[in-house]
């Protein structure tokens, strides 16, 4: 089972002029096995939602709740959230000099599972995950995100998704900056994850392009820190045709 419930979430970020409210009451439920796409213009707060769920220290929760299978997520530390079953694929994955991908993956897997993975199956799993994402076998010896191309960074995020096997994955603009081949490879990885029993996905994107490869169950339009409209896949088609204007300037609609 995996059910992520976000209720009336309010989040601020500290600026030079004092705290600024970015999320203004977000309510959203991702039920067992569902994929939700969140679409919105730049600056609407989409990434803030992703980072707030993951627990980035830059953001302050001022109201509302987030629960995963009934457990209060907001009271957990960043690593506890990950161990509870949340995963955030980042838009800008961070370089960790001197730490190899294979060491990083093994350390993360050990932390998530509470015990070291069985060596023989683990090496096989890692190699398979890298290969499916078209990453060279020597990839494991490289330092985490150091010198990776934009596409390699995103494929590495999805390899982690498949290996760490969370309950709910939040994908923050995983499609941005990818060419069409890389987009397909990344989408296939996400779809393999979705095919597993009961996995939830929150797919945050600026473009409709990725929705051709990852078909969402629900689409939400995110404007000015909250959900402005919700619907099925047809909402994405409408956004593709009309853009965000009608949500940004309600008077003209």
């Amino acid at each position: 089972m995996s059910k992520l419930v976000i209720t009336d979430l309010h989040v601020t970020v500290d600026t030079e002029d004092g705290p600024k409210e970015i999320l203004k009451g977000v309510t959203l439920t991702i039920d067992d096995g569902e994929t939700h796409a969140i679409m919105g213009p730049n600056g609407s707060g989409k990434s803030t939602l992703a980072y707030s769920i993951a627990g980035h220290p830059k953001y302050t929760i001022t109201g509302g709740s987030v629960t995963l299978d009934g457990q209060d997520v907001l009271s957990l530390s960043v690593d506890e959230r990950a161990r509870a079953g949340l995963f955030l694929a980042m838009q800008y994955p961070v370089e960790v000099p001197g730490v190899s991908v294979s060491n990083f993956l093994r350390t993360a897997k050990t932390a998530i599972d509470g015990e070291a993975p069985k060596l023989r199956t683990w090496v096989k799993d890692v190699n398979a995950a890298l290969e499916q994402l078209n990453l060279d076998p020597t990839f494991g010896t490289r330092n985490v995100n150091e010198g990776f191309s934009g596409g390699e960074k995103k494929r590495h995020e999805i390899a982690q998704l498949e290996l760490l096997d969370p309950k709910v994955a939040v994908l923050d603009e995983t499609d941005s900056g990818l060419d069409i081949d890389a987009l397909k490879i990344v989408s296939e990885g996400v779809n393999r994850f979705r095919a597993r029993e009961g996995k939830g996905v929150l797919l945050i994107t600026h473009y409709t392009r990725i929705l051709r490869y990852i078909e969402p169950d629900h689409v939400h339009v995110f404007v000015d820190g909250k959900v402005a409209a919700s619907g099925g896949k047809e909402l994405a088609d409408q956004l593709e045709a009309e853009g965000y204007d009608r949500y940004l300037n309600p008077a003209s609609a």
Partner: protein
Amino acid sequence: MTVTTDSVRSALEQAPLDKVESHLHPAGSYDVADHVVPTGREEIWRFTPLKRLRGLHADAPLDWRNTRATWNAPEGATVGVVTGDEATALRGVSGWAPNTRFTARILAEVPATLLVDVPADTEVSEPIVIDVDGTDADVTSGAHVVLRFGTHSKAVVVLNHTGSAAVSAVVEVVVADGADASVVSIQDWADDAVHLSHHQARVGRDASYKHAAISFGGDVVRMDANVTYDGPGGSAELLGLYFADAGQHIEHRIFADHTAPRTKSHAVYKGALQGEKAHTVWVGNVLIRKVAEGIETYEENRNLVLTDGCQADSIPNLEIETGEIEGAGHASATARFDDEQLFYLQSRGVSEKEAQRLVVHGFFNDLIRKVGVPSIEARLLATVEAELAKNVLKELS
């Protein structure tokens, strides 16, 4: 094998280089009287806590017998103590004249020299390890060490310092043409030790020299690691790794003096600091003389500050007398843990402490690999782990 004074003299009688006026490299002299006792206001002494040096910078007795050294002598190399004329002939064998009082005193007053000789065309497969173990930090001593690598030879020398001692030392390194020499100096002293040292290397034509300074233990550790070049094509890699705990003063200075064309110097020093009044100093001096056309130099110092109350001073100096070079650059950065790195690791389930541990190991890993001595690598990784256990990982245990 002996060295004649003639060969020393010929080394010193090379075509004179243009004099460069600079406070960074005062003219040397073998006469102790030419060097006044430093007051701490001098540029080259301003960071060093002179009061804690037990007089090594001034007039403390320098009885060489107070430092006990043992060594292995793998096949191909000879290691031993020489005295008398033989030792005298080795003073200044690196083509350098002392620029500080303590180095002038060692050359003038210490009657013996520990000499490592690697004959020409000899490859010594096993590291030559010299263990210096001190028993009493209240007894001061001075040492003169000469490491001589013959033409086209290849060897690794490890100077391993442990225990309690108050030692000043001059280590002169001669890397003959085409040789491939590595010198690793590990300062893993007890908490009360004081160590003041000057390593001076002369790198021959087309020779490679790697110098690794690794400082973990001791109350005050200061090392100057200098390089000059005997001919074109020589290259020097200067590596440093240090970890300062509460109250420790660890100071590393390098000086790559590009005295010949098409030579290279590449310096990477990395340090971590933890605890009240942990103090590290890195001063990276590079001089590109007029004659040094076509050279390449890069120097880098990075410090990771793990707790409050530490101080890391980092000063790169680059003096350029000719613009006809391949490249010259430097970088210096001192920072705390990167929050974004820790967040990324934690978002993968790794606890904060474990994430910090990964980041510190990662910070040092590339450097440890560059030292390139497998038997030392494991020990360095273990030492980094032990240092981390004092602070970063304390809550884990």
